[in-house]
């Protein structure tokens, strides 16, 4: 008897709960965003989050639902599938899975939810043809941002030693570290140094951010880079340890600098230690996707978006470089000159599609030739860079 009563109570409760599902307003456009880290990490995930806010501000009736810190350490009970299902049930029409860590899972989830569009940021499964038809890829051409960042480091270094704090090792992270290296060599030469004397050391922590017990500790690695003679450390990870440490050291009177990454506001952590930040401004690219999904014109594509060369820091540019207070006036002027040269190169109709400074003679770390003298590296060979470049110190795999 009591069992029957309790069963009835459970059933009634379920039914009542189901009828209470909020009815979605007709003109509301819901989109989902999934972050690998917290939305306030002052790095990659925060830049993604602000991209979502940009859609909310510019697409009337749009509403963001998001899930932060989706990784086995922070949310072991939740998979991308669970999160996406929840977002779809909230009414999401497009879901941005904003990390390389979601690349494989995005394809699997998209297959299970075919009438929702999935955008995997930084992935290339659309390019390779592995992705289902409701998946798209977006990435900004951060190679330019890293060239500029490397240049700022090369102009500033007094010890001739530059450190690069890398996340995990893949094509993306290798090509960004290599771009920074090429920029640093070039600008070290501009200042009258011999580029071959420049030491450029890459340390990989193993993931996009610190997971205690799993990755190397980025704080420790940054300190090691400084302690072994580097006076500029560039960050390639999602979070802001490099600029935090640099700030502490500057406060102690050391002449060191850092270049954070991803998030436009990250120099604010320690302005005097900051040479500048190459940042992503995802808003416009994401807004275009959301509008296309809303009006039904969306089709899958692999978008590798270049900066707005009229002004890389404009509201329309996906990649920018904000100079920091730590960069001397003389170096600011030199850097502005280099940025203007890069813009000239990128917009020159007579130069084939390529990244500046990615020109031969260039060898991979093991000595294999990447480009002969006078030859440009094909952009896709940059995208899939299989090793670091010859002259860089650090692991390639």
């Amino acid at each position, binding site marked *: 008897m009591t069992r029957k009563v309790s069963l009835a109570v459970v059933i009634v*409760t*379920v039914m009542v*709960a*189901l009828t*209470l*599902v909020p009815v979605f307003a007709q003109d509301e456009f819901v989109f*989902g965003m999934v972050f690998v880290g917290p939305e306030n990490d002052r790095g990659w995930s925060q830049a993604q989050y602000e991209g979502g806010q940009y859609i909310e501000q510019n697409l009337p009736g749009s509403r963001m*639902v*998001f*899930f*932060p810190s989706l990784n*086995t*350490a922070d*949310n*072991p*009970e*939740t*998979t991308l*599938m*669970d*999160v996406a*299902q*929840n*977002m779809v*049930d*909230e009414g999401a029409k497009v879901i941005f899975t904003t990390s390389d*860590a979601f690349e*494989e899972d995005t394809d*699997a989830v998209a297959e*299970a939810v075919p009438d929702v569009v999935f955008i995997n940021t930084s992935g290339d499964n659309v390019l390779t043809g592995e992705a289902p038809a409701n998946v798209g890829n977006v990435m900004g051409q951060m190679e330019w941002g890293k060239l500029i960042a490397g240049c700022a480091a090369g102009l500033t270094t007094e010890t001739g030693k530059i450190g690069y704090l890398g*996340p*995990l*090792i*893949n*094509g993306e*992270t*290798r090509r960004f570290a290599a771009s920074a290296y090429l920029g640093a060599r070039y600008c070290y030469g501009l200042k009258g140094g011999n580029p071959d004397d420049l030491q450029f050391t890459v340390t*990989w922590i*193993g*993931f996009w951010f610190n*997971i205690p*017990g*799993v*990755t190397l500790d980025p704080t420790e690695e940054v300190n090691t880079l400084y302690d072994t003679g580097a006076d500029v450390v560039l960050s390639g990870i999602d979070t802001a340890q490099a600029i935090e440490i640099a700030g502490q050291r500057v406060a102690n009177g050391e002449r060191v600098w850092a270049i954070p990454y991803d998030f436009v506001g990250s120099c604010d952590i320690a302005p005097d230690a900051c040479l500048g930040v190459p940042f992503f401004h995802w808003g416009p690219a994401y807004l275009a996707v959301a509008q296309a999904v809303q009006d039904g014109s969306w089709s899958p594509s692999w978008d590798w978006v270049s900066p707005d060369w009229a002004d890389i820091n404009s509201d329309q540019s996906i990649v920018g470089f904000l100079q920091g207070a730590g960069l001397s006036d003389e170096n600011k002027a030199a850097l502005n000159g280099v940025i203007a040269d890069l813009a000239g190169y990128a917009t020159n109709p007579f130069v084939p599609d390529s990244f500046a400074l990615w020109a031969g003679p260039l060898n991979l770390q093991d000595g294999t030739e990447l480009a002969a003298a006078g030859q440009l590296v094909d952009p896709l060979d940059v995208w899939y860079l299989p090793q670091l470049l010859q002259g860089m110190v650090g*692991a*390639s*795999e």
Partner: protein
Amino acid sequence: MRSHRLISATFIVLPVVVAVLFTSLLVMLVGNEPGEVFQTVWMGAFRNSNALAAVVNFWRPLVMVSMGLVITFTAGLWNIGVEGQMMMGAVFASWAARSLALPHPIQISAEIAAAALGGALWAGLAGVLKTRLGVNEIFGGVGLNALANLLAIYLISGPWQPPEGGSAHSTTPFPANSLLQPASTEFPVSMVALGLAFASIIGVTLALRGTRWGLQLKATGKSSASARLMGVPTTRSVISAMMVCGMLAGLAGSYRVLFTYESLRPLVSGGIGFLGLLVVLLAGIRALWTPFIAFAFAAIMAGSTRLRVSLQLDASLAGVLQGALVLLVLLSNGLRGRVVEWSDRRAAKQAASVSETASPGARHE
């Protein structure tokens, strides 16, 4: 007797009510409506078959670990190493998934057997450390957990790294032939794995109730020294309890790699082993209660994903509710003992005074 039952019932209901009130208070403090929050968690867990599948997919490893822990708790062991045993199960299953290419049913059986072996060996090691070298299973377990994690990270970022390069994120996904298959797209749960979970629930319950081994575990758990005097092979009890628990933990770990993530990832055990300890404590080490409490935990955990998506509330609120529940239940168990003692004493006193007033009359007669 009747008052005992009433006291028991009160002390089961009371901590649940207090935990819910406590969580509600927290929710109100951060400016949300408790009713809405609980409803959101409920919807997150049970709104449709896909949501239910997410609950079941978390319940499945949790219940297997918990059933294993019922065995070790019965034998008086704090098997903190259960997390590492899950990890070793995941590693062994991953090895089989990567290296073998057999017809699907044989392939899956081989992976499951490998996972069971990995977990059992790792737990057996903790058992041997305890019985032969006098290393408390708690300390041994903590050490072995760390080692198992390191081994997994080494494999992920080293020998088993994806072709594009090294990361501490994941191995290459396993081939489809090596993976457990979902029942359907509406209810993506592996029935093979679910069958194993039910088998382990029934198996553990029966083994503890009706076998000589179960009796020996209980005797060892109650008092190892007297059990030994009574001729119970306590060393064998300890090691076998550990190994059976490790086997179940290994199977739990295999589900995480062969179904949930389809690859080996760091921390793939996800704290489920530690959660299992809470489940079994909450169940008072009763085999039959354990699956239900595990299910409630899984529902709260999976349902709270919804909190984030709908209400922008931190999903770790679920952890607060669970932690409060376990603490309050343990607290109320202690209190119940005192109250029962007190009410017994009062009843005895009353009985004594009744018999005192009654007995002189009896003499007169």
